[in-house]
């Protein structure tokens, strides 16, 4: 029941490929000290079936993060971030659990529990992910303004991209 289909695995690989080959190159600096990064790979962890073991998800997150890190040349930064997102995921799932419960064995989809639920669930986790990413990247809250501005701008673009993709496919 915890098996992923070959199609899903290929789509994960595609997400990572798009992230590291395409979106990595779109890092736009603005106002001298801020920069925009588009991060879509956390969607893999975010949308894994609810029935997946929490430890398994965390280990998967670590692995995916490391792969991304290899391409971003930032050993551990994406891994630490995605592991944190994976950990938070189970808490968020518990907090915003629909009244009728989860369809545990399927990938989380926009039409399972209503679009509003899907938008807020993806939004919360993606925002946390991007915030943690910029925090670890800056590694000091001395840069708190930079962290917040980068997070908000990057979150908006990444979120729109993911939602657009999910609404189309």
């Amino acid at each position, binding site marked *: 029941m915890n098996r992923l289909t070959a199609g899903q695995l290929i789509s994960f690989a595609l997400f990572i490929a798009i992230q590291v080959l395409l979106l990595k190159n779109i890092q736009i600096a603005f106002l001298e000290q801020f920069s925009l990064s588009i991060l879509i790979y956390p969607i893999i962890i975010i949308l894994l079936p609810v*029935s997946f073991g*929490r430890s398994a998800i965390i*280990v998967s997150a670590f692995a995916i993060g490391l792969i991304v890190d290899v391409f971003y040349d930032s*050993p551990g930064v994406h891994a630490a971030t995605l592991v*944190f997102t994976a*950990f938070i995921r189970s808490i968020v799932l518990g907090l915003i659990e629909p009244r009728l419960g989860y369809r545990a064995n399927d990938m989380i989809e926009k039409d399972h529990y209503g679009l509003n639920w899907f938008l807020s669930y993806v939004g919360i986790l993606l925002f946390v992910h991007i915030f943690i990413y910029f925090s*670890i990247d800056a*590694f000091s809250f001395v840069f708190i303004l930079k962290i917040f501005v980068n997070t908000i701008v990057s979150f908006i673009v990444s979120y729109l991209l993911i939602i657009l993709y999910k609404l189309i496919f």
Partner: protein
Amino acid sequence: MSYQQTGFKGFAHIITFLVCELLAFILIINFNQTQRDIFLHSSSLFSGNLLKTSAQVKDYLSLQQSNDELLAENARLLNEIINMPRSEAPVPDAGQIAYSVIPARIINNNITSVRNLITIDKGSRDSIATSLGVTTPDGIVGIVRTVNHQFSSVISLLNIEIRISASIENENYFGTITWDGKSYKSLSLSGIPIHANFEIGDKVVTNGYSTIFPEGLLIGTIASFDVGKDGAFFEIEVTPSTDFANLDHVYVLKDNFAADIISLNQDE
């Protein structure tokens, strides 16, 4: 089926989470220069601050000593500068040095009287004697009047009794600097003949005709001038270049040839 009932009890995932985060952060700190720098800096932040505070306290306690060292160094350099024109050899022998420079600190200063005196913290044990010149890098201060073992009393330029032989820079005419006892921003230079050429702003310097000051030390700049009553000499107002209201460190100049010069004059 409720999420809480899906069977993921216990804390195994928390341990997995912590282990993965630990691994990730080990990677971050070992392989990312920026984060590594910040990490190393942060972990030494507390001890670093402590060390900095203690160093600051230590610095403060040794301020006096470092000041004295700097003063001695300045005196040595000033000594070299003053003796440069007179010494032809690159490094003059101790016996050949015309002026010795003795650093001193002002411990009492006055500018409100008409006979202002300055007390310095050097006396006869530091080989200070009467009639030595006292100067700062900005300009001359006065002449030593009385000396005891530890301290000396200096007649300030701001004393109606002072007479200092002075010239306008690059002019050979010499006159006398006096103070009228009014403004501490104004000295008077008398005895410059009416045919001398100079302008407002020209420098007034010591002329080296006495054994008190070497030639060319700054006294002040010409503020205004007028023809005197007898019509033969200018009466020149000079703004002193020394800020007498803000004196701290001074240098006492000792002419090592003074005895020779004085005995020569007495022979005549």
